[in-house]
């Protein structure tokens, strides 16, 4: 029973989508209800799983079935599996997904245009995201990874703002470009890897766990770690790492591959922005931790300075651009770029603290960015205007909203007591320690990254000052009348998020106890394996 | 130079000259007639290359059939339009240049020894009989397919003409 829980979690939305397909499209309330029930079922399933999860037990809820097994004669057997499981990395992210999806569903209550299509796409997206986090087979991962594209494309393109078409196409193209790079690495990998479970035959396996073990590589294959090929100045394994890195960095997003994000965020409807910021961005970091680093540890060590550098650039550039943004959503989007830079820095440090911090940051940013986008949506719902300078003195008019914004902004700028603080502090610790512990990163990376914190405080406080203080003023008089404070539905979405941000800020231990074993194992494995492999470059 | 060689080169020259004539001529009808000359000289060359049956077919089918169809087509179109048979030329320079280059390339390749005729080329004896047998034995499949090809061409041509009836302009 226990082993089917994860599949249950994964496929409940898909089944619900299938059911919704056959419901009459005029009864728009039913679709909301179906989606809500699905999310509640998911929450129940997740709680069941959490109750039995053993934080030191490594991979759990593993389910393995044969999917594609092709006997190709002398070429060997091509084998892809339905292989899913959760560990200290994926469990927090899956939990985040379930939670955020529930809130997204509530936030989607106001959707009026083509309700059926919207909720079906949302359900499909739900499955795709959980699948990406749960898959342990590269082909399965890739399937879910690409499967997110289309629902997202339509969700932005149909229900988005004025320039939605441009934004959705840009989003699609960037992500597809990334996934094509991943595909090249995928082809190279599975051709080079042999599944040892079938003796006597060559089995080209997509199993991510097999790919981590240098023993499983076919000798003299292009990605064979013991005898790597040179392509130009670098070995093929280094190129493969770079392909994966760029592919996932687009998703993360990392400067300079981030330009799709502000457009997509600004044009997407509020719930979709929430999903995009809180969940989709995490897939980039997740892919690095799950695929790129463990499979190519020596390349990861070699390029750690590059990853860290790009991380720091993202932190600072994101913060500076956020400061210059005139649009509230654009500001939040760039702050996401800045915050995801910490994830890169944490991963690059390859210390237990750094990696734990990176995963913690992904969860924390998931919660906080969801809150930020919901708040931006609250304002936009009332005035249809997101330009910061068009508001002034909102604090008096909407006190509860102001309080919520205050919480969200403080959490996002990494004030102590909020989850962002814990995550960012751990990343700093990791980045500082890296120099002495494993000699990968110079301390200056950590020092420059603190600049991100300062700038973060600056742009948030400046935005607060401009929007909420001073004499009340809103551009356009008719809009001013519509400015009411939060309603109950909005409470129900924002309060849990705020509480979560606080809990994870004050009691980090439960979450860390999940992540820590993973981080320990991860950094150990990457460091030892990476150093043992011949560093040809 | 004996008579046979003279005849041979005479027909070669005629063929080449008439082909050039087609290229230069602006009159479709004259060009068609020049093609006829060309085809007949080629037929003569076939005879000199011990391919009598091909030569006969060339004269009967090609010169007698294809060309008549083409001339018929010319007459029909010129009658319908009432315009003179003059033809314009486009991109002469590019075409002639690429033609010359291609010829130079081909000629260069042909100079190769591989294409030199062996010292004692045997004349094919009883070629006519062998061709006949071939059609019934080794080449029976192509022979049948040629039949189907003719049939398909016939259906095609018939279909096209019936479009014309169905849609009068």
């Amino acid at each position, binding site marked *: 029973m226990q082993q089917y829980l994860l599949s249950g979690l994964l496929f409940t939305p898909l089944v619900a989508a299938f059911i919704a397909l056959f419901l009459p499209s005029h009864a728009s309330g039913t679709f909301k209800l179906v989606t809500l029930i699905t999310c509640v079922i998911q929450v129940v399933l997740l709680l069941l799983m959490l109750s039995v999860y053993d934080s030191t037990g490594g991979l759990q809820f593993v389910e393995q079935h044969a999917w594609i097994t092709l006997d190709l004669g002398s070429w060997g057997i091509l084998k892809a599996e339905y292989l899913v499981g959760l560990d200290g990395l994926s469990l927090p992210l899956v939990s985040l997904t379930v939670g955020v999806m529930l809130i997204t569903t509530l936030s989607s209550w106001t959707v009026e245009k083509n309700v059926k299509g919207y909720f079906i796409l949302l359900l499909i997206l739900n499955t795709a995201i959980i699948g990406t986090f749960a898959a342990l087979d590269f082909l399965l991962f890739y399937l879910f990874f690409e499967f997110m594209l289309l629902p997202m494309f339509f969700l932005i393109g149909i229900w988005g703002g004025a320039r939605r078409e441009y934004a959705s196409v840009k989003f699609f193209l960037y992500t597809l470009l990334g996934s094509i790079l991943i595909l090249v690495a995928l082809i190279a990998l599975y051709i080079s890897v042999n599944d040892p479970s079938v003796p006597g035959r060559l089995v080209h396996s997509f199993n991510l766990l097999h790919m981590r073990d240098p023993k499983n590589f076919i000798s003299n294959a292009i990605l064979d770690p013991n005898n790597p090929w040179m392509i130009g100045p670098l070995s093929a394994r280094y190129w493969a790492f770079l392909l994966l890195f760029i592919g996932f960095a687009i998703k993360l997003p990392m400067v300079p591959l981030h330009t799709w994000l502000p457009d997509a965020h600004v044009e997407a409807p509020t719930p979709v922005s929430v999903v995009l910021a809180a969940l989709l961005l995490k897939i980039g970091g997740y892919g690095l931790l799950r695929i790129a680093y463990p499979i190519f540890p020596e390349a990861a060590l070699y390029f750690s300075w590059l990853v860290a550098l790009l991380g720091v650039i993202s932190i600072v550039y994101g913060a500076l651009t956020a400061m210059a943004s005139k649009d509230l959503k654009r500001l939040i989007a760039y702050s996401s770029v800045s915050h995801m830079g910490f994830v890169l820095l944490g991963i690059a440090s390859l210390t237990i603290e750094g990696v734990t911090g990176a995963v913690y940051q992904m969860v924390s940013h998931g919660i906080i960015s969801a809150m930020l986008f919901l708040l931006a949506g609250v304002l936009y719902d009332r005035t249809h205007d997101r330009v910061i300078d068009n508001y002034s003195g909102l604090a008096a008019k909407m006190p509860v909203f102001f309080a919520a914004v205050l919480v969200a902004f403080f959490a996002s700028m990494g004030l102590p007591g909020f989850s962002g603080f814990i995550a960012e502090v751990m990343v700093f610790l990791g980045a500082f320690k890296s120099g002495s512990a494993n000699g990968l990163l110079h301390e200056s990376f950590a020092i420059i990254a603190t600049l991100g914190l300062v700038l973060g405080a600056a742009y948030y406080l400046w935005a607060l000052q401009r929007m909420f203080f001073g004499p009340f003023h809103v551009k356009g008089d008719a809009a001013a009348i519509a400015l009411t404070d939060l309603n109950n539905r909005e409470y129900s979405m924002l309060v849990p998020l705020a509480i979560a941000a606080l809990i994870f800020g004050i009691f980090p231990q439960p979450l860390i106890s999940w992540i820590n074993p993973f981080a320990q194992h991860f950094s150990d494995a990457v460091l030892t394996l990476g150093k043992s492999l011949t560093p040809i470059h | 130079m004996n008579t046979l060689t003279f005849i041979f*080169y005479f027909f070669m020259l005629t063929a080449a000259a008439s082909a*050039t004539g087609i290229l230069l001529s602006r009159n479709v009808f004259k060009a*068609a007639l020049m093609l006829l000359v060309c085809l007949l000289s080629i037929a003569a060359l076939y005879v000199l290359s011990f391919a009598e049956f*091909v030569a006969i077919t060339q004269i009967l089918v090609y010169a007698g059939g294809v060309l008549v169809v*083409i001339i018929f087509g010319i007459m*029909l179109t010129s009658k319908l339009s009432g315009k003179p048979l003059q*033809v*314009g030329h486009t*991109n002469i320079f590019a075409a002639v240049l690429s033609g010359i280059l291609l010829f130079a390339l081909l000629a260069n390749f042909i100079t190769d020894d591989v294409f030199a005729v062996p010292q004692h080329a045997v004349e094919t004896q009883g070629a006519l009989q062998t061709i006949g047998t071939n059609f019934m034995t080794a080449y029976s499949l192509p022979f049948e397919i040629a039949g189907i090809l003719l049939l398909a061409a016939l259906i095609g041509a018939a279909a096209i003409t019936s479009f014309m009836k169905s849609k009068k302009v």
Partner: protein
Amino acid sequence: MMPSLQHLLYLAAFLFCTGLAVVMVKRNTIMMLLGIELMLNASNLNLVAFNRLYPASLDGQMFALFVIIVAVCEAAVGLAIVLRVYQHYQTSVPDEISELKG
């Protein structure tokens, strides 16, 4: 003594190139057809000439005969198409036929 085989090949190459040039130069579909016939004859001449290199079988001559048959079919279908276009456009000049634009 027979003239060299290569001279026939030169002639064939000349006919082929002339045919190709005719197809490129002429703005009249029937003229283009004439060019195509020239090209086909060049191949035939080659086949017959090469057959002298391999007198044991008559493959070349057989091929040439089939080419003549195919040429007949091609001419028939081609002229039917030309006449049909002619009915629509009252012209056989390709440049004046421009319903389809790339």
